[in-house]
């Protein structure tokens, strides 16, 4: 629907991913310098200029599969490694967190404030590294330029587009259940109390006017809730108090990140399985992905000593168990196309590789880059 949704989806999901990885790096006692390198590498990749250029172009939202593939790639943009089960869980947490934030936003425009909360936190992660900091600042400017002129109706369209993306996702998240913001059936709690959105009046008043415009009577009614007047508006500038807490970091070392697989909605029609036969839809997504991936720098893991594995589970056994017992309808399915046999995909990839060598990027040899792209396309 809205062709301006993807940047917000990507930045907010990326922000949640960083919160979770940061928590896991500390929980697993990864040495500070390694942890910092991981965070810096991922953030550098997230805000890569070419990548963001593609992202900010007007376009329809990617499918769940395509977006999952992008985040798989992003999570592996450093020396850190994640197993399939941990990656699945990471993605579940990211998506449910952002779904929660989108639903609870008092006004559609507040999604931009949520995005700024994520951006503010990302900026804090890299405050000691000027080169990455400037990339992040540039992104703030792009967000402000693209989104602040939009009307309330256009923001609602963006919100509705995001809600279609998140439709039927009811994965239970331990931290949400504990805080009582999510019910045991996976649905979020929508309170009928608290401050009304900025620009809205507390419900309860009917005013009637004569033909000359004079108010001749007013009636009160019971609004069935417990509302208070709106808070001040958050800042839409590069700096400022965002007022809303949505989009700020809710994890800390002492709060574990668990999800529950059982009891999810039967109507998970959105999670389609990957079929072996190539279909026209997948081909177009592949083209889009290839263009996007072309902007992502490929990081070789380096020697075995520097690489390490992060888990989203307390023990390896739990991780194994999670992988085996994950219900079919919740499998994300990475795009699985025989790139070597697909003429069109080959042409597209060749074009990307050509672009890289022409632009003179400092990069590993062309064949390595192609291998990585193909390896990713063939399904991690």
């Amino acid at each position, binding site marked *: *629907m*809205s*062709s*301006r949704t993807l940047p917000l989806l990507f930045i907010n999901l990326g922000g949640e991913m960083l919160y979770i990885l940061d928590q896991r790096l500390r929980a697993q006692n990864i040495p500070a310098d390694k942890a910092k390198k991981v965070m810096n590498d991922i953030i550098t990749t997230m805000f890569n200029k070419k990548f963001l250029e593609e992202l900010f*172009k*007007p*376009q*329809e939202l990617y499918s769940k599969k395509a977006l999952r593939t992008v985040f798989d790639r992003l999570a592996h943009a450093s020396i850190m490694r994640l197993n399939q089960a941990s990656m699945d869980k990471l993605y579940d947490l990211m998506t449910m967190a952002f779904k929660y934030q989108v*639903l609870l936003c*008092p*006004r*559609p425009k507040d999604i931009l404030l949520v995005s700024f909360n994520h951006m503010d936190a990302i900026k804090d992660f890299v405050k000691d590294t000027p080169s990455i900091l400037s990339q992040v600042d540039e992104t703030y400017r792009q967000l402000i330029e693209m989104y602040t002129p939009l*009307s*309330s*109706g*256009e923001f*609602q*369209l963006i*919100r*509705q587009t995001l*809600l*279609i993306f998140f*439709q*039927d996702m*009811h994965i239970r998240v331990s931290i949400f259940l504990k805080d009582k913001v999510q*019910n045991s059936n996976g*649905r*979020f*709690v*929508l309170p*009928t109390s608290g401050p*009304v*959105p900025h*620009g*809205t*009046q*507390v*419900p*309860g*008043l*009917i*005013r*009637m*006017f004569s*033909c000359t*415009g004079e108010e001749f009577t007013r*009636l009160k*009614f*019971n*609004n*069935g*809730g417990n*509302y208070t007047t709106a808070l001040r508006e958050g800042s839409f500038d590069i700096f400022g108090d965002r007022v809303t807490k949505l989009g700020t970091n809710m994890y800390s070392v002492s709060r574990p990140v668990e999800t529950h697989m059982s009891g999810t*909605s039967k*109507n998970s*029609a959105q999670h389609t399985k990957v079929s072996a036969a190539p279909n*026209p*839809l997948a*081909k*177009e997504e592949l083209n889009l992905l290839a263009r996007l991936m072309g902007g992502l720098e490929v990081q070789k893991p380096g020697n075995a000593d520097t690489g390490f594995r992060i888990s989203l589970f307390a023990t390896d056994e739990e991780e194994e168990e999670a992988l085996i017992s994950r219900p079919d309808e919740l499998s994300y399915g990475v795009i699985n196309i025989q790139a070597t046999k697909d003429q069109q995909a080959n042409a597209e990839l060749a074009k990307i590789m050509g672009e890289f060598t022409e632009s003179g990027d400092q990069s590993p040899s062309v064949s390595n880059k192609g291998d990585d792209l193909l390896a990713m396309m063939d399904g991690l």
Partner: protein
Amino acid sequence: MYHKEKSIQIKNSASALYNNLSVLRIAPRRLTHFTVVHANMVNMVSASWDGLNYTHRQLQSKEPNVATSTSLIMQAAFCVLPSRDLLVVTSQKGIQMYESDGSIMVYWHALDTPETPTAQAVFARGIAAVYENYICVGVSSGAILVFDVPSKGSNITLSEVLEEHKESITDMASECSGSQECIANLVTADDGGNLCVWKSGEEFQLLNKIPGFDMSCSSVKLWKGTAVAGYGTGQIRLYEAVTGILHAEINAHARWIYSVDIAPFSGLLLSAAEDSLVRVWHMTITPETNSVEVVHLHNECVTDTQICGARFCDGDGYAFAVTGYDLSEIIRYIQS
């Protein structure tokens, strides 16, 4: 005043779209059709009045070219004309019109979609059947397409394009009191909260423009010459359509309103919003004396649900139905 009845289960959950529920009551066959949009599909369920039979049907949005990405549906609405009833479905690609039971598609109108996506989204939204034999549909550019519908067959033609709104059309409604005396018989609304009031005919005539305050009007109805509009701020305003005089302003909801509906025989008004609440009001409108009064009657809370559709099931408002985002059921309420 109302109590909850047995819900109707639907095959998919409702998407968060304005006015995401349409109801058609077919008295001779003692059944009611309901339609709810889920992404690129319309879920249709026909419920017999004795509550024993439920038939389901799903309609997909039409894509002229399979290789292109999915076409999301913005709205589905029943259009009741003197000679026939049609189901109109609007999407990112165009407008489909079906026989009211969803069995046959009788007409397809493609929108001009650009090769590469533009910053401004392209879609059709806002549907109304207008006296005497017109179906009007809004477009994201602000244009309104007027289709001339013959009493039977598929020879539907585009009769006129009305270009008055500058922002995306959100909703539109025709005069529902059944009175032939009303001068205005169509009101159209846009994302800026602006309302246009029209008189139908071979050439539609613009009677009045009521400016908005840069706050989207998501749902509008027209009854006894009064335009009833629901806004993103949660306010409902009642305007005398032809003059633009504001007769009533209600701080009705704590969140964005998604649906307003009127029961024309009784003057009951239904409003529903993202705040989980459905409210029932009563309007007393006397056009002769220009007097408009509104009172609040009843609240229903659909816990933890952002409501996206609410409609009366009959002209008296004896029953109403509600849909919510991520909910796979149509919740029904009946007067106690």
